[in-house]
């Protein structure tokens, strides 16, 4: 057989492909010729399409063509990935073709884990190809040697671009690319991405914006075979509410058994723990099922990933931590437990199965409740249509800009106008107002305060040539310690220790080398399965948000790392836990991995509900449920807002069905209850789900409507987004948390506040105190604006709420019922078991305050006389 000839490809590469029985794919060759002509390009390809090789072919062929005797010509290609592990893995994968073709190319990874000595050497003597993360790139660019280091750069390869551009890390990366273009004008970019809703957004992101704005070229790999998607019709009754999988755990287990390797995706860490536990409780065959989520200790996660890479695992229960990452060829089944949330997210998760393009990926959707069954059905349809609903492009954050400006000064003195032009060439900042840039510059210099109080303490100031430079070397040192945009909420280490009271049960050792990915089964008292005691200062299992631990009292049990643990106490900023023997743990409700339902999918669900003819594909119990709803109340329609009111117990309920996602509903609930309080309806609380919102009052809401005292139209009027929103936002704990993040990113406070470790808490300043003072004295400060923007977009979904309120104007259908409707049952069941996060924290504060009052009433203080 004659070998196909690819003129684009040098001989040694053609031979290498042929030796493996491969042929270069069309998109790989297309990308190669675009790179040859000096163009930047975006490659959109499904997993398994040889994306990484496509991204590196241009670089490998160029470096292979170097004259044999030349020594290193400096850094040639920079690869940036959002995941440390991916950078390391790609470095490893590049070694094979380089060695097999006998190329003299040096490839090295550089992450936060790279030893300092090697990082220093990499600056002095850079490899041909450097694989790194956005934070490390920022650090390299902020060094004094950035200019010579990057002068030789020819290419940047950006992996998982669709994921990076959705966050502040993307803002930082975009600013750094603008800087790189300055240092290396000849440089071109290759972006690698999964399918997105609007490819042009990413194409603009890759190219300089402003005067000569253009887009990177687009290369599309052919889509893989359509996925084989189905929804589980569980043998058991589909729950009314909740997101768990206990009703389906036997079916999931059976599916895992039929597949070679399965990824079981869930939406939250708490669900991951629960599903993992349930699977092991029925794991009669002792299948190797592992657990992977963001709270687990990093080394633990690495162990699971390695075991997976070696083909040792049958299944992993995981959260979005595995949405991205290393390709595992052997995965042939993806199970998505709970709501899919978005069509694109589901497509990407499905893509984690079967990396051979010509074979369909197999995926099973497991709805956790009846509404999720509707959502699963809508998602299956959307996926078949190839619909995409990735979020729209973001506007660059001001706090990230502040960090970047200081970094620029750390590298070398800059001219403000030149820097402004550079910053606005980055797509997220293309529309940055000059006044905002100056405000950021002012913040970096003297804090941006109205009084100009800190002139003499300026961190950067203008020299006699009009260039901004740092005041001293310590400023650069501090900046380096604080680079990056990921600010953890207050997390406590979870450390395994000896139980305080020694238990009188026989203890059995775990198998040698046993680790957490094989949990010991939850045995009855006759089968005590847990290992013996560990001393104080034992193993760190991972981290949990402080506010979750605060809800526990010593002795309370919770699931973590697949085990039931008891809190022993919190000492020196660590949570000490012991292995518990309880079988009924209090499941952790920490908030990891909550995505809102996408607008697109929400719309499909509304349409599905309102058209009974489409119900045939739904499980019978779901159809019955909807039919009953149509009979006793009515069905929400595609464009109207259904509101039901009914009495129950001593209370009067209002349930609305906007289908706009939990975040938007929570904001709506907060605003509506404020308004109802003013109307003296005496609202007592509310609960929000992805689909609905329930508010309960002591006064009769339907009666108020009937008497004309209340109008639903007025209650749901858009003007609630004005003063009410602002007023509530200013006071909310959520705003304070958001402010803290912005203050850290922008560099107002340091990640590790000076003196914190040494002198205890009374000398530290909490950002809450700073927030209170700043809000009163300078409400338009740049960081308050940054925090407000973050809260409004990310956490409150104000934009979405606003669109919804406009859409339903004049289209409210109010059903005054005598009793709870079938559709209302799921959200009613959420009452009282809302997880402790977000707004619920405010309620806790109120409760605690009430308890204080009560306490004060019972024990009057002071002297009676």
């Amino acid at each position, binding site marked *: 057989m004659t070998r196909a000839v690819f003129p684009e490809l040098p001989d040694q590469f053609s031979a290498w492909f042929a030796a493996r029985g491969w042929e270069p794919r069309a998109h790989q060759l297309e990308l190669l010729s675009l790179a040859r002509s000096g163009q930047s390009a975006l490659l959109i390809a499904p997993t398994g399409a040889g994306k990484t090789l496509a991204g590196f072919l241009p670089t490998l062929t160029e470096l292979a063509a170097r004259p044999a005797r030349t020594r290193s010509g400096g850094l040639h290609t920079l690869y940036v990935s959002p995941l440390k592990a991916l950078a390391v893995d790609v470095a490893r994968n590049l070694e094979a073709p380089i060695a097999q073709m006998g190329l003299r190319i040096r490839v090295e990874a550089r992450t936060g884990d790279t030893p300092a000595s090697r990082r220093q050497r990499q600056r002095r003597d850079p490899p041909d190809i450097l694989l790194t993360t956005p934070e490390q790139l920022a650090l390299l660019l902020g060094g004094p040697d950035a200019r010579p280091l990057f002068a030789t750069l020819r290419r940047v390869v950006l992996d998982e671009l669709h994921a990076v551009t959705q966050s502040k890390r993307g803002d930082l990366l975009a600013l750094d690319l603008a800087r790189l273009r300055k240092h290396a004008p000849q440089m071109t970019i290759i972006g690698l991405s999964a399918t997105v809703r609007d490819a042009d957004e990413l194409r603009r992101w890759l190219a300089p914006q402003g005067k000569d704005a253009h887009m990177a070229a687009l290369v599309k790999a052919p889509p893989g075979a359509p996925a084989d998607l189905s929804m589980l019709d569980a043998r058991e009754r589909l729950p009314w509410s909740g997101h768990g999988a206990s009703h389906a755990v036997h079916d999931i287990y059976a599916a895992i058994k039929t597949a070679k390797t399965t990824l079981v995706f869930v939406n939250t860490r708490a669900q991951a723990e629960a599903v993992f536990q349930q699977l092991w409780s029925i794991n009669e065959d002792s299948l190797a099922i592992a657990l992977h989520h963001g709270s687990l200790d990093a080394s633990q996660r690495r162990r699971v990933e390695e075991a997976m890479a070696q083909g040792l695992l049958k299944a992993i229960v995981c959260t979005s931590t595995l949405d991205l990452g290393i390709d595992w060829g052997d995965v042939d089944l993806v199970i998505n437990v709970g709501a899919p949330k978005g069509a694109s997210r589901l497509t990407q998760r499905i893509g984690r199965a079967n990396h051979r393009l010509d074979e369909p990926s197999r995926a099973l959707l497991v709805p956790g409740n009846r509404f999720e069954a509707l959502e699963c059905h809508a998602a299956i349809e959307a996926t078949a249509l190839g619909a995409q609903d990735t979020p729209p492009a973001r506007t660059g954050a001001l706090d990230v800009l502040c960090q970047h400006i200081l970094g620029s000064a750390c590298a070398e003195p800059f001219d403000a106008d030149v820097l402004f032009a550079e910053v606005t060439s980055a797509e997220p900042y293309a529309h940055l107002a000059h006044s905002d840039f100056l405000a950021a510059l002012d913040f970096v210099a*003297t*804090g941006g*305060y109205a*009084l100009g*109080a*800190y002139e003499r*303490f300026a*961190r950067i100031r203008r020299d006699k040539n009009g260039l901004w430079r740092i*005041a001293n070397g*310590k*400023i650069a040192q*501090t900046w380096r310690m604080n680079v990056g945009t990921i600010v953890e909420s207050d997390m406590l280490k979870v450390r395994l220790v000896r139980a305080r009271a020694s238990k009188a049960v026989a203890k059995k050792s775990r198998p040698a080398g046993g680790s957490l990915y094989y949990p010991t089964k939850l045995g009855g008292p006759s089968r005590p399965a847990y290992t013996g005691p560990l001393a104080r200062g034992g193993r760190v299992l991972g981290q949990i948000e402080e506010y979750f631990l*605060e*809800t526990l*009292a010593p002795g309370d049990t919770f699931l973590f790392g697949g085990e039931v643990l008891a809190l022993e*106490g*919190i000492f020196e*900023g660590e949570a000490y836990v012991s292995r518990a023997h309880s079988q009924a743990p209090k499941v952790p409700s920490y908030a990891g991995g909550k995505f809102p339902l996408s607008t697109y999918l929400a719309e499909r669900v509304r349409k599905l509900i309102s058209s009974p003819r489409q119900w045939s594909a739904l499980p019978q119990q779901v159809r019955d449920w909807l039919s009953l709803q149509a009979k006793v109340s009515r069905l929400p329609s595609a464009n109207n807002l259904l509101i039901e009111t009914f009495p129950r117990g001593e209370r009067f309920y209002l349930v609305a069905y906007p289908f706009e996602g939990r975040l938007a509903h929570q904001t709506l609930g907060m605003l509506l209850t404020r308004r109802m309080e003013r109307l003296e309806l005496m609202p007592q609380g509310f609960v929000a789900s992805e689909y609905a919102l329930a508010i309960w009052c002591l006064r009769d809401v339907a009666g108020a409507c009937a008497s004309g005292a209340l109008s639903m139209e007025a209650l749901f009027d858009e003007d609630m987004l004005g003063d009410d929103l602002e007023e509530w936002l200013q006071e909310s704990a959520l705003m304070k948390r958001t402010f803290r993040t912005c203050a850290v990113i922008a560099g*107002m*406070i*340091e990640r590790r506040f*000076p003196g914190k470790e040494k002198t*205890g*808490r*009374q*000398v*530290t*300043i*909490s950002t809450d*105190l*700073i927030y*209170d*003072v*700043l809000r*009163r*004295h*300078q409400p338009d*400060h740049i960081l308050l604006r940054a925090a407000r923007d973050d809260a409004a977009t990310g956490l409150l979904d104000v934009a979405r709420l606003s669109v919804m309120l406009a859409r339903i104007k004049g289209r409210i259908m109010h059903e005054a019922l005598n009793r709870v409707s079938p559709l209302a049952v799921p959200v009613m069941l959420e009452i009282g078991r809302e997880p*402790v996060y977000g707004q619920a*924290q405010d*309620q*806790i*504060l109120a*409760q*605690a*305050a*009430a*308890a*204080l*009052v009560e*306490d*004060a009433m019972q*024990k*009057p*203080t*002071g*002297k009676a006389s």
Partner: protein
Amino acid sequence: MSGITASVEQGFSLGDEDFCADVSGALFHAGERLLIVADLHLQKGAAFAERRVLLPPYDTAATLARLGEAVARYQPRAVLALGDSFHDARAGALMNTADRASLAALQSGREWIWVAGNHDPEAPAFADGLQCQTYRLGAITLRHEPSQDRGLEIAGHLHPVARVAAAKGRLRRRCFLSDGARCVMPAFGAYAGGLNILDEAFAPLFTGARTIAHVLGRANVYRIGLESCRPD
């Protein structure tokens, strides 16, 4: 004046002297018409700025404004600042004109006593008032750092805060801590952090009778037993 009646109920005694614990964190002795505040930490923002940590420079104004409200409520004959009134001497000297004027206005027409603290062994030159190491109020000694003495004492320095457990959550708030013989006052300064009252620093000070945390709420001071308080 309703503001006072609400607050007067929230009081406690040391020896034979009665005090009113104000929600601002100030302590008022009606007999002497003496208003006591601890740990104002004026100019703390400026002190951080010297290290290029540029916090909002409004903390001094905020602290003085809150003190002004307390002064307006009680109309004291004298104000006693119980040490660490200035975060440090250098930053204290940098106090701006507007803040100096507010301080002078507060001082006008009343006695003012600066008790020395570890941050401010001496008050800045521009600050009027009597300076002393300790102050005697009847049988009670007022000093910045709590001592191990048996006698009656009011002190500051430790910035007590209580973490209070309620049905479903917890609050961390500044508080007075008192056992009837000794009182450690909450820090008054806008940027003053807090030390949990269950920290070992408090243990040797409150050994005897029932110790009560008088916790500052939004509108009232609440009396909480230590059994309801949690460590950090």
